[in-house]
C-alpha cells in the first residue's frame, strides 16, 4: 500500500493517530496524522495528499454512511481523522487554490440549537474540498445576510430539526433575495422535505450529510 493509499485507508477506517483506540484492530498503528506528516516530510505533493488521500476517502465514508454501514459515531471518527490530515496540509495550500471547490456558509436556523447534523454536513463538505464558514446554531437571518454579503458567491446551507423552527428558513431566503443576493441555498434537517425546500425558494435539499455534498457539487456543476 502506498502512503497515499494508507492515508485514505485510515480516513475510511476513522483512525486518527497512534493514540487513537478506534478502530480496535488499528490500535497503536500510525494514523492519518502521522502518515500525512510522513508524506509531507517525504516531499509528496500536498495536492496529491488531498486529492488522492483525504477527499476520496471521505467520499467512501459518505457512501458507507448513506448505506447504513456506519453510523454517526464512526463517521465522526473518520471526519476527525480527515481533519487531522487537512490541518497539516492547509498551510501548504495556496490561497485561492483551485483545489478549494467553493465556499459554504452554514448554520442552524434561529430558534434551533441542534447541530449534530449540521456539523456532519460541515465535516463532509470540508472533506470533499469545500471551505466552510460555520455560523453555528440559533442563527438569526441578518447573520446569514451579513455572511452572504461578504461572500456573494458562497453557497448557503441552513439546518433545522423541528417544524416550528424550519419556518424560519424562509425568512433567511427572503432576506437574502430582498438584498439582491443570489447565493444558492440548500436546506436540511429532520422535518425538512424537498417539497418544503421548493415552497420556500431554496435551490436544494439534502436528506443527509452525503447528499449535502452532492447538492453543493450540483450547484457548482462538479461531477459528484
Amino acid at each position, binding site marked *: 500500500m502506498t502512503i497515499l493509499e494508507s492515508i485514505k485507508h485510515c480516513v475510511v477506517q476513522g483512525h486518527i493517530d497512534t493514540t*487513537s483506540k478506534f478502530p480496535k484492530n488499528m490500535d497503536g498503528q500510525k494514523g492519518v496524522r502521522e502518515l500525512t506528516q510522513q508524506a509531507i516530510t517525504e516531499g509528496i505533493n500536498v495536492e496529491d495528499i488531498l486529492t488522492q488521500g483525504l477527499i476520496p476517502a471521505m467520499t467512501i465514508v459518505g457512501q458507507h454512511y448513506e448505506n447504513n454501514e456506519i453510523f*454517526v459515531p464512526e463517521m465522526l*471518527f473518520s471526519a476527525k481523522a480527515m481533519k487531522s490530515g487537512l490541518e497539516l496540509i492547509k498551510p501548504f495550500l495556496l490561497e485561492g487554490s483551485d483545489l478549494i471547490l467553493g465556499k459554504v456558509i452554514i448554520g442552524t436556523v434561529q430558534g434551533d*440549537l441542534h447541530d449534530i447534523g449540521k456539523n456532519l454536513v460541515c465535516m463532509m463538505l470540508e472533506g470533499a474540498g469545500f471551505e466552510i464558514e460555520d455560523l453555528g446554531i440559533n442563527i438569526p437571518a441578518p447573520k446569514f445576510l451579513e455572511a452572504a454579503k461578504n461572500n456573494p458567491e458562497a453557497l448557503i446551507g441552513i439546518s433545522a430539526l423541528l*417544524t*416550528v423552527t424550519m419556518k*424560519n428558513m424562509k425568512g433567511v431566503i427572503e432576506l437574502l433575495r430582498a438584498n439582491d443576493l443570489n447565493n444558492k441555498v440548500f436546506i436540511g434537517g429532520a*422535518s425538512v422535505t424537498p417539497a418544503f425546500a421548493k415552497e420556500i425558494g431554496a435551490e436544494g435539499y439534502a436528506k*443527509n450529510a452525503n447528499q449535502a455534498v452532492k447538492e453543493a457539487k450540483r450547484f457548482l456543476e462538479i461531477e459528484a
Partner: protein
Amino acid sequence: MFSHLRKPNFEHFQQTLFNKTNDYIPLIELGIHPDMRKAIMGKPVTNVKDEIAFMRSLGYDFIKVQPGIHIETNRSIAKNANVATDRSWSSEHDGVVTDWESFEKYNWAKISDLDYSRLEEAGKLIPDDMGIVGQYGDIYTTVWEMMGFENFSMKMYEDPELIKAMFDKIGGLVMSMFETMASMDHVKVLWYSDDIAYSSGLMVSPDFVREYLFPYLKRIGELAKKRNIPFIYHSDGVLYDVMPYLIDDIGITSLHPVEPLSMDMAELKDRVGDKLCLCGGIDVDQLCRATPDEIRVLTRKFIEIARGRGGWCAGSSNSIPEYVKTENYLAMIETVLKEGNW
C-alpha cells in the same frame, strides 16, 4: 365537543395494542403540550383530575403518567419568534459527565428520589372505563445528553467502560421505575420512549443498541408479559434494522410514532402488521401547516390502511406541540371518531 364522541373503553384500547381487535380505531398521543390542553379546555390542565377530564373529552381511553425525577444534562434555551414557549436542548458537544472524574463527582439521582405520587393519585381517580399507561424512557438519550453526543461517540470506542457505567446508572433508575409501575395493578400498559434513529437510519450501530440498550427493553418486555399487558415502544426514525429484535427478543406489542419521513405506514403495516399494533403516523408537519380539510383527507388515508385489519391507534407522528394548529388536531380526532369504525 365531538358529535361522535365515544365512551372510553380501556379494554378495547389494550386489545388494540395487542393487535387483537378490529372494531374501531382508538386514539393515542405520547404528549400534548399544556398550551394546547389549555386552548381546548379553556383552562390549564394541571392535576390528575383535570387530565382525566381532558383526555375523556377528546375520546381517549387512557391517561399517561410518569414517575417524577429530574436528571441534569446540559441544556440551553433558544427563543423562537414562531411560538410563545422557549425551547431547551442539551448540548450536542459537551455534557455534565465527560470522563470518570465527572462521573464520580456527578450528583446522581437515587431510586429513593423517584416520586410515584401522581401514579398513586391516578390509581385512585381513574374511572373504570379508562386506564393508566405508565410511561418513561430515555436511557440511551439521557446517557448521550449527559455526555454530549460528540463526546459520547468518542467514548463509545475510547472508553466503553464509562459508557457501560453510564447505562448502568441511568438504566438502573429507569428499570426501577418500570418495576414499580408494573407492580401497580392500575397501570395496565407500559410505554418506553427513547429515540434511537433519524429519518435516514439509526444514530448508532444496531450492535451498540443491542448491547447497551436493548437488555433493559427486554426486561421491560418481560415485566409486561408477566402482567399480560401491552408494551409500547416509541422511537423516531427508521427502525427496520432493529425491528426483528424489537419484536422477537424484546417483545414489544406496539410501535409508536411511525414518522412518515422515516417509515411508510402502509409498508410497515404490510411488513409487521401481523405482529405489531402501529401507533401514530399523522404527520406533525401537516398538523402544523395544512388545513383542517387536508388533515381530514390525510386521516382518512390512514383509516383506509387499517380498515379490515385494525392494529392502528390513531395519533400524530410524534406528539402535539403547542405550535400544531388546534383546529387541525381536533380535525384529526374528529375524523377518527366519526369514520374510524367498522
